[in-house]
């Protein structure tokens, strides 16, 4: 295998070859697809039989269903990636040590970076395979509508990026731990922290802080589910303004990402309404506060906050979308984990090489 005249990273070529020959890979892909197909079936049955509350057209209902299926699949793809990637990558270095195959690699002309890059790319390639295998299921939502190619691209990119970050963390754990069991526990622990721990910290901030201020969302930038929700999100509750809504597992996450003073009717201020004339002036209560709209001199209506400030054109964060901040933070952490693994593999070292 060659790439632009250069041989493919030998570690990557070997890892892919080995991985594809094991029965475990077949089992993982089968279980992964079975779980997603089951979820698709449940969501489809549940939603297609439900009464339309807004009396929308068939096309709108179909699009709503398509969107829901897409987002639900995407959510559970992320969940499964969180299960599969740490387990599949945590043995990258510790497994070589245990099999006594690390030393022959280290005395070859491969640098630690090449060895780890091969391992990392192999993990990402497996996530890519899972995504490819999911495409027929995602295709169902395309048939129903409500999902664009851009949506799909963003969703796939989010899943791959999550896989990359988790694989980097697992590599770092694998280089630190002497045994694969320890590396697995560490990798799953970190994944659990990113996926659930960060949300729990945010929730705890909310509960414990009695100053009335909104909790800092910085911790949520560590959460790949929130980043994906933001990257793939759109206003989802807007029956009042004639938009279709969905029932997506990402909706509660998106709700948390939007500042409370920008929410109304439990949904979101549409992008085109931020700082722009609203179609009609009306007071909208949110959690006991009032968001008022008033007439401007030119006859238009602007959304303002209770303190008189207009609704900002972007979410809080200096105009940088939440998902972009999340990419930077998670990218930095992944890079640090990869660097740590590289340093741990560097020779000659002061301690005797094992394996």
């Amino acid at each position, binding site marked *: 295998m060659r790439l632009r005249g250069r*041989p493919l990273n030998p570690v990557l070529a070997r890892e892919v070859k080995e991985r594809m020959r094991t029965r475990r890979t077949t089992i993982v892909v089968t279980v992964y697809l079975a779980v997603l197909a089951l979820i698709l079936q449940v969501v489809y049955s549940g939603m297609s039989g439900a009464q339309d509350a807004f009396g929308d057209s068939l096309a709108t209902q179909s699009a709503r269903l398509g969107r829901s299926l897409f987002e639900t699949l995407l959510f559970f793809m992320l969940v499964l990636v969180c299960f599969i990637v740490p387990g599949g990558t945590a043995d990258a270095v510790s497994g070589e040590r245990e099999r*006594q195959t690390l030393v022959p690699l280290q005395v070859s002309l491969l640098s630690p970076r090449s060895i780890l890059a091969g391992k990392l790319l192999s993990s990402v390639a497996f996530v890519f395979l899972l995504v490819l295998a999911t495409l027929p299921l995602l295709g169902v939502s395309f048939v129903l509508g409500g999902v664009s190619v851009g949506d799909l691209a963003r969703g796939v990119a989010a899943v791959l990026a999550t896989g990359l970050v988790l694989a980097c963390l697992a590599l770092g754990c694998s280089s630190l731990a002497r045994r694969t069991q320890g590396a697995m526990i560490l990798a799953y622990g970190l994944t659990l922290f990113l996926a659930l721990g960060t949300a729990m910290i945010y929730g705890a901030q909310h509960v414990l802080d009695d100053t009335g201020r909104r909790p800092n969302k910085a911790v949520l930038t560590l959460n790949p589910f929130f980043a994906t929700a933001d990257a793939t999100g759109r206003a989802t509750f807007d029956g009042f303004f004639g938009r279709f809504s969905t029932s997506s597992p990402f909706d509660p996450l998106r709700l948390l990402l939007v500042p409370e003073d920008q929410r109304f009717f439990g949904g979101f201020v549409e992008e085109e309404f931020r700082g722009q004339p609203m179609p009609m002036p009306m007071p909208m209560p949110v959690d006991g506060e009032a968001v008022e709209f008033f007439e401007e001199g030119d006859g238009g209506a602007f959304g303002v906050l209770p303190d008189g400030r207009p609704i900002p054109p972007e979410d809080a964060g200096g105009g940088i979308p939440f998902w972009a901040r999340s990419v930077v933070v998670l990218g930095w952490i992944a890079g640090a984990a990869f660097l740590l693994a590289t340093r741990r593999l560097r020779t000659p*070292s002061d301690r*005797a090489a094992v394996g």
Partner: protein
Amino acid sequence: MTALPDLSAAPVGEGVELAVQVEGLTKRYGDLFAVRDLALSVPRGAIFGLIGPNGAGKSTTFLVLASLLAPTAGRVRVAGHDPVENPRAVRATLGYMPDVMGVYDNLRVDEYLEFFAGAYRLPRSSWPGLIDGLLELVDLAGKRRTMVDSLSRGMKQRLSLARALVHDPEVLVLDEPASGLDPRARVELRELLVQLRDMGKTVVISSHILAELEEMCTEVAILEAGRLLAVGSPRSIGDQLGGARAVRVRLAGGEVQEHTVGSEEEQQALLARLVAEGLPVVEFTETSNGLEDLFLRVTKGVVQ
């Protein structure tokens, strides 16, 4: 007990090209010295045996030579390169075979060697010929498409040796290559190493099976507790130790005589005398354990 002579500084002939040079090598872990002030000179084309009980510092020395372990002190050169300052150059010229060979579960023998050919950045066009040659050399040509994990231990050792040779290194460092092998596999391995020496490779080898080292090593170094106790050819070490040699003489008709001599010269004189006396000598054999005997006399059993 009389003190042993200093055998740890065998002279190296002038103009001898050295493949491996170790000066004052020390490696310590906290208070424990794994190797202490070791000095070795391995001439190019030699088969150099490193002998010592478990914990003597053999594997530590090999790890330093292979650029895997940084020494605490001292200077090491492998084919003229420093493993600490220029590990990449050392790796390009050194083939290292660790004492335990790990295998990948789902690779065939040829794929295993292809992987390492890639790891040594060899051009892909050279792989088929190279792998054919290596498998022929280690007598695994018939196992080309066999899965590595299904090979016997002896075959795995030979494959590991082929792996260490994949980039045609000048120096081979083999840590206990005969460990766990049956007698036949050991003989095959020994023949292979002699063949490699004939190909111009320098082989540095450690083994517990001293009789084998004695047969193929041009020089040996005896280590104990990280210290070098003796270095030189087995015969020169024996001569310096000045110990007695047992000689077994069998005469025609079945009579067997046991003699004791002090040196090689005395051994020659004994044979000349027996022949001069007209005795029908049909067998004249030195019966000491050779290297094993030397090893026991030089080491003190400090570490086991």
